[in-house]
């Protein structure tokens, strides 16, 4: 009997400490390149990459089913990125492994996502990447430290390409000139993106907006713009301000629920103005989408548009391609008109804000007069000042002199 007991004890110890195989942690924490989920193994998805990163393996999820990615952010390609948090003092929580950095994906909330990029809060944090100048994204996009309130932060972003001393962006980036009211220009380098294709995709906090590509002159490859209220998006990683919520007809946009908007800015209309920074003004109305009261953006009259979101203003407003001058063509939400006053009707503005622009055809369309620093083709486009040549483009300045 004693022998039996000893044997049982021996067997149990063998079972307890028998052969085991520990899967290396790099399988969960490491960065693995993929081109399809099959490259990643069972239960894995292939997260879309971008100009900073190749596609990489992450656990699979369903964008429309949050329960499949309870502790992360599900991307449009069905990969669950780990969530992270950012303390009030800007200290991010740890991400798995050394190859992922906590990147802020919400300027209002201390939420981030673990992404394979080089993190930064300021340009000084970015190591030189060979011959390519680096800027922290907040500096590269000229984002203000605060926009709406002091609660908005743009730290814990990532290093991005910067234009060289001559204002040229690295190969593969889209450059866009920005002018201030006095004609001082700056070049911003935007990662390119493509909608509905195999990429490139937008890095975190940016979103792909086709209409802006038309304005830049590369409509088939639009730039990745910071995901702010009112812009279309694919998933939560795309929105720097707001959440990427369904807004109907299968579209998603960076916005808030009506309740959150009320808490943050009073109501949905408080979310309207930020988009105007990029010439994409939208009208936000609280609507029930999928049972959730959501601030649904629609492109304001005369703003850039495309098929990603609808134009506001009813049946007489359509997103159509129009020509601005001889070179620039863009999709804008237009209304046919005969006078400037007609364009101002129902907008709350006046003739100083809108003008009726003749087209190459027989019809004329309403157009919004631009603020100082915005691009223009002639003086009448500007709300004030003059439309001046600032180099590669023309912008509304206080004075061309």
């Amino acid at each position, binding site marked *: 009997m004693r*022998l039996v007991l000893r044997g*049982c004890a021996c067997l149990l110890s063998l079972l307890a400490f028998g052969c085991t195989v520990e899967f290396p942690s790099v399988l969960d924490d490491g960065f693995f390149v993929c081109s399809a989920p099959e*490259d990643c193994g069972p239960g894995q998805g292939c997260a879309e990459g971008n100009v900073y990163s190749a596609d990489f393996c992450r656990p699979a999820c369903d964008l429309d089913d949050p329960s499949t990615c309870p502790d992360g952010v599900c991307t449009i390609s069905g990969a669950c990125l780990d969530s992270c948090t950012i303390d009030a003092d800007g200290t991010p929580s740890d991400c798995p492994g050394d190859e992922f950095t906590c990147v802020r994906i919400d300027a209002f909330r201390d939420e981030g996502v673990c992404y394979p990029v080089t993190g930064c809060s300021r340009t000084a944090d970015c190591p030189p990447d060979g011959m390519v100048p680096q800027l922290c994204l907040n500096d590269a996009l000229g984002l203000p430290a605060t926009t709406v309130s002091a609660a908005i932060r743009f730290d814990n972003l990532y290093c991005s390409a910067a234009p060289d001393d001559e204002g040229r962006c690295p190969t593969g980036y889209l450059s866009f000139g920005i002018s201030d009211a006095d004609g001082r220009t700056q070049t911003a380098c935007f990662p390119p993106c493509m909608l509905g294709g195999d990429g490139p995709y937008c890095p975190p906090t940016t979103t792909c907006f086709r209409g802006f590509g038309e304005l830049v002159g590369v409509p088939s490859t639009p730039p990745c713009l910071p995901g702010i209220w009112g812009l279309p998006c694919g998933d939560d990683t795309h929105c720097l301000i707001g959440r990427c919520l369904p807004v109907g007809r299968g579209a998603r946009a960076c916005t808030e629920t009506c309740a959150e908007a009320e808490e943050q800015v009073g109501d949905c209309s408080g979310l309207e103005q930020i988009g105007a920074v990029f010439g994409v003004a939208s009208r936000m109305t609280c609507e029930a989408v999928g049972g959730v009261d959501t601030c649904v953006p629609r492109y304001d009259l005369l703003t850039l548009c495309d098929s990603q979101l609808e134009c506001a203003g009813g049946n007489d407003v359509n997103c159509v391609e129009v020509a601005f001058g001889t070179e620039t063509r863009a999709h804008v939400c237009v209304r046919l008109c005969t006078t400037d006053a007609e364009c101002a009707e129902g907008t709350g503005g006046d003739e100083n804000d809108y003008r009726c622009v003749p087209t190459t055809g027989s019809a004329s369309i309403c157009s919004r007069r631009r603020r100082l620093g915005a691009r223009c083709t002639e003086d009448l486009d500007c709300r004030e000042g003059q439309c001046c040549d600032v180099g590669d483009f023309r912008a509304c300045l206080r004075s061309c002199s």
Partner: protein
Amino acid sequence: MPFLRADFRLVFQFALATLIALGSAPHAWAQSTDVEAAADPASASGPAESDAQEPDPVAGSADVSERTRVAVLILATGELDPAMAEGLSEVLIGALAARGGLTIVGQEEFQAQLGQGDERTLACVSSMACLGRVGVQLDVVEVIAGTLAQREERWVFNLNRVDVREGEIVGRVFRETAGDLGAVADALSAAIPELYAPPEPPTPVVPPAPAAPPFGTLVLSTPVSGADVVIDDALVGHTANGGLRHELQPGEARVRVSAPGYHIWLRTVRVQAGGEVHIAVALDDAIEESAHPWVFVGGALTAVSLGIGIGLGVLSQETLLISDTQRMNGEVLRADLVAFYETRRNEAIAADVFFAIAGAAAISTGVALFFPERRRASGAVAIVPTPGGVLVRGSF
């Protein structure tokens, strides 16, 4: 070894023939075991002259035109070489042939009729019923059978002449002789007349004073049937119906009773002429203890499972070294790495299963050690020489 045995036999027969030729043994030596002796007394003058001194009822009464068929057999007992007994059988055949009027059937035909080996033949020699049956099978009138044994420096042989038709012993000889085989041959030849001596006629008027019977009787009683009874290294029979009754020369005798499944019973008894010695033989059960068969099965299973488990365990610990560059450049896909470690994990699981089997088998083997298999001994293993080879008998 059959060649060596055959060579030894030839040498022995040659030596016996030489002894017979030089001595008073009959000259009718024959290689054949089935000898038709010459009817003409002149052809066997030596023995005829020698035996003329003795009354010879066979020679005197037999019709020479009707030869009497006689089967002859002498068996060696104990450790004695069977070839010696065969040689003496030939001597006996020669001596009988010299008497004339006999057709002699030799030992080999005897055994051929039996279709069995020396051991069973030896048992048959001790059984009147068996001798009678064999006699009928051989179509003989008489069977002359006996055994040869060597006790210390002395030779012991006995012969029984059995009338097959009457089913009774009509002649009996027992001799104990010192010396070499030649002396045995001489004693054998000299004993022939006694074998054919007529029985003492009854004296109806005045019974003669009872002569001291030449034999004593050993009466063994045992509940075990079929036990071998060996007296002085000679198998004398098997117990049946509660025992065995056997006549033997007066004096001390070593009695050995053995049966499969029982311990050997050994005793030295003293038998007086005309007396009976009753012995109750209590054969004790011989229980063999051997390891339970599972000990061997479990042991083998333990070893094999352990070996396989160790092998799989070693395989399962293989690792794949990849660099960060390979991983980040897509040279190594995660799916491939997962598949690799899935295989290793399966190997580890299989190894654990085999370890568990080995452990269980080891435990059960240990338990089985405490429960040896007990069974009645079926007999010791023995190697018995037989003509032309050896016979291995016993339980394994």
